[in-house]
């Protein structure tokens, strides 16, 4: 994004900013879920529990933002879970093992992610490798490199303030990690709705040839989207490292599937061109609230997996029916 000031007539109007553009179904689902859990449990409906949910969805939320953009252009990124682990290990190596300051360590971690995302993007845009394959390969490569850094063992010993960022609630409610997630969501929604670059993603996802003929640099945008998705995965990795106060190369396994699930529940079409970050926020909240509520109800984790699977199906089937009408 450029640093240009937002001109007056581009100022987002409130109604539009909160319009869910196709995610009304999931939103109603989320409300119903919250109502049900408020009645079924004593502890769900509390400010404290709400903050817990926000803490629990930070990593998934940031991954899902990047994934939304990738899916919006009709792609898929299977590598985000591995890239998250790569970011964590690079962070740990640079900060703890090499003793570099945290700022440099975080930059290094994000840079490593940017490179792997750009690489996958170039494979997809320039060499016409299907996104599924290119990111599947990157998933394996990133995981391998993450393991190679410490030969598979974890790194501990971050400075104390790092972990505090995930624990201290500034102003009584906001941890640093949650704040980062909220900023990412806000920036992504603004970008998607009001930046030319954001609208172009919809055109690319709708029909890449139409977009190209309309003068949009489809290849460059595609590479940028995969790079951004990877960097966001890296950022999620940094936040996860702060929450765990340690890093290990086995982190984030299958996180890509959670992220895809959140995006799909939020109403973004896997064929690209429709949906958006607003819906994804709902999708992430549904998964977060569901997990939290099922835990409060002491539902076994195995049954939880079954229920989440059913919710994914329900969301997509409901969407399909809505379109058929």
């Amino acid at each position, binding site marked *: 994004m450029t640093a240009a000031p*937002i*001109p007056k007539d581009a100022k987002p109007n409130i109604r539009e900013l909160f319009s869910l553009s196709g995610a009304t179904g999931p939103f109603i689902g989320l409300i119903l879920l919250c109502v049900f859990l408020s009645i079924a449990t004593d502890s769900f409906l509390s400010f404290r529990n709400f903050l817990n949910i926000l803490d629990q969805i930070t990593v998934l939320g940031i991954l899902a933002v990047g994934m939304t953009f990738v899916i919006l252009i009709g792609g898929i990124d299977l590598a985000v879970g591995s890239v998250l682990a790569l970011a964590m290990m690079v962070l740990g190596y640079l900060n703890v093992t090499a003793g570099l300051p945290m700022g440099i360590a975080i930059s290094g971690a994000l840079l490593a992610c940017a490179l792997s995302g750009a690489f996958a993007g170039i494979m997809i845009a320039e060499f016409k490798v299907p996104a599924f394959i290119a990111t599947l390969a990157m998933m394996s490569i990133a995981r391998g490199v993450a393991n190679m850094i410490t030969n598979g063992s974890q790194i501990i010993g971050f400075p104390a303030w790092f972990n505090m960022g995930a624990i201290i609630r500034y102003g009584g409610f906001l941890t640093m990690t949650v704040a980062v997630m909220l900023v990412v969501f806000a920036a992504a929604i603004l970008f998607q709705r009001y930046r030319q670059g954001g609208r172009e993603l919809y055109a690319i996802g709708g029909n890449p040839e139409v977009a190209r003929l309309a003068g949009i640099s489809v290849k460059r945008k595609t590479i940028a989207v995969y790079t951004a998705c990877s960097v966001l995965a890296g950022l999620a990795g940094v936040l996860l490292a702060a929450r765990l106060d340690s890093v290990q190369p086995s982190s984030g396994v299958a996180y890509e599937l959670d992220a895809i699930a959140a995006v799909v529940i939020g109403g973004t079409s896997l064929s690209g061109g429709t949906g958006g970050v607003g819906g994804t926020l709902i999708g992430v909240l549904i998964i977060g609230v569901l997990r939290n509520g099922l835990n409060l109800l002491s539902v076994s984790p195995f049954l939880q997996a079954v229920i989440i699977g059913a919710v994914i199906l329900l969301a997509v089937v409901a969407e399909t029916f809505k379109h058929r009408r």
Partner: protein
Amino acid sequence: MTQTGKTPILSLRGIRKSYGPIQVLHGIDLDVAPGEVVALLGENGAGKSTVSNVMSGTVLPSAGEMTWQGAPYAPANPREAIDAGVGMIHQELLLLPHMSIAENMFVGRYPMKAGRLDRREMERRAGAGLQRLGLDISPKRLVEGLSTASQQLIEIAKALTLGSKLLILDEPTAALGGEETKLLFKQIERVKAEGVGIVYISHRLEEIRQIADRIVVMRDGVKVEEFPSADVPVRQIVEAMVGRSMDQMFPPLATPTSETVLEIAGLSSPTGQFEDVNFTLKKGEILGVAGLVGAGRTELVRAIAGADAIKSGTITLNGKDVTPRSPKEAIQNGIVLVPEDRKLQGIIVDHKIRENIAYSNFDAVSTAGWISTKKVTAFADENIAKFGVKGSGRQNVGEMSGGNQQKVVIAKWLARNPKVVLLDEPTRGIDVGARSSIYEIIHELAEAGVAVIVVSSDLEEVLGVSNRILVMAAGRQAGILDHSEANDVSIIELATA
């Protein structure tokens, strides 16, 4: 009602169809006799497709009855219609590219022997089907890579092999060139001689007069006219279709200035689809580009618009070299292309009209990259009104008729106030009413000083709108004809030279 005197093979009586409160067919009577070609005409939305869908079992009528070979006929689904002997050939061909011709012909009803697929029998029967149409292709060949015309004929062979006694052809020539159309017509004559009844749907009036025995015109779900022979002036058919008298299909010719705007010199494509093309275009001039399918017309305009690579040659605009490396460069220089395939290249069907217009006009609706929703709405609405798009900016483009979709594509590009506009088959698959308004837009463009290139397979159209006509043959520039010397014959001569 039968003018032919023969017993009809299929009769429709009082067929009605409504979707909720909207009635789309108001009591249609129609007869098709064996060995007869009935042309079904009408503008988009007249109800032609609904009628053919009722006949082929895709749509159930709300009221009315049908008789097939003397017995009541009420197919509940396409399968029952096919089993009865009604074959429908859709505009979009439905062949599986990675399977052989024989497999395509028998998919879902493979001949079996001892519980497994009898490949030899299947290929023998497929071969016989192809023979029947005089097609010299091996049934073992994959469909992939066959020309559209061949695929069309294979669909027909498939329907006949399945025992069809009535064929419904929906816009069969929409994607065919002159030669291919001729081939198709020869096959239709052959099938007709075997006593198969044919319902032929098309927008191309000239070809209907060649092929049809009888013409039925529909408008707004009603059969408005039935011409007992095809020997009717085009004008009379058109007037029946649009329901008003058409003084003139084409606006007067544009009046070009003497100022040269565009100069194409020695332009060649890297794949050899066109070679050494040279011409100039004046301000306010309309240049038609004619030729057979595959002559390199589309490739030429795509190259000028930066959509395809150029091997050699230059494009000069107002004395400046503007040979583009991407569509973006051409657009920035004021050269825009209204592409051949609306749905694949022109619009995004699931997106709103407003968004579709904005995609090529971001600079007009944003400040420093920030898009103003208000500006998008105002800009789109202004152009929707200006180019006569019937619809609101909030509608998805996919919900609209072909003619309106094309107007959205035109609006999206003309809103940029370009200097050169390239239109590739601007009226393909569009009804007569929308067609004349597109000619009007083209005329106004030229009058406003824009240089226009119109590529078309419709000779009447090229002759009607162009100041000069560039004829291409097999990638070569066969010649440029002035309006005064151009006619069907001179164009065809050059195109087939």
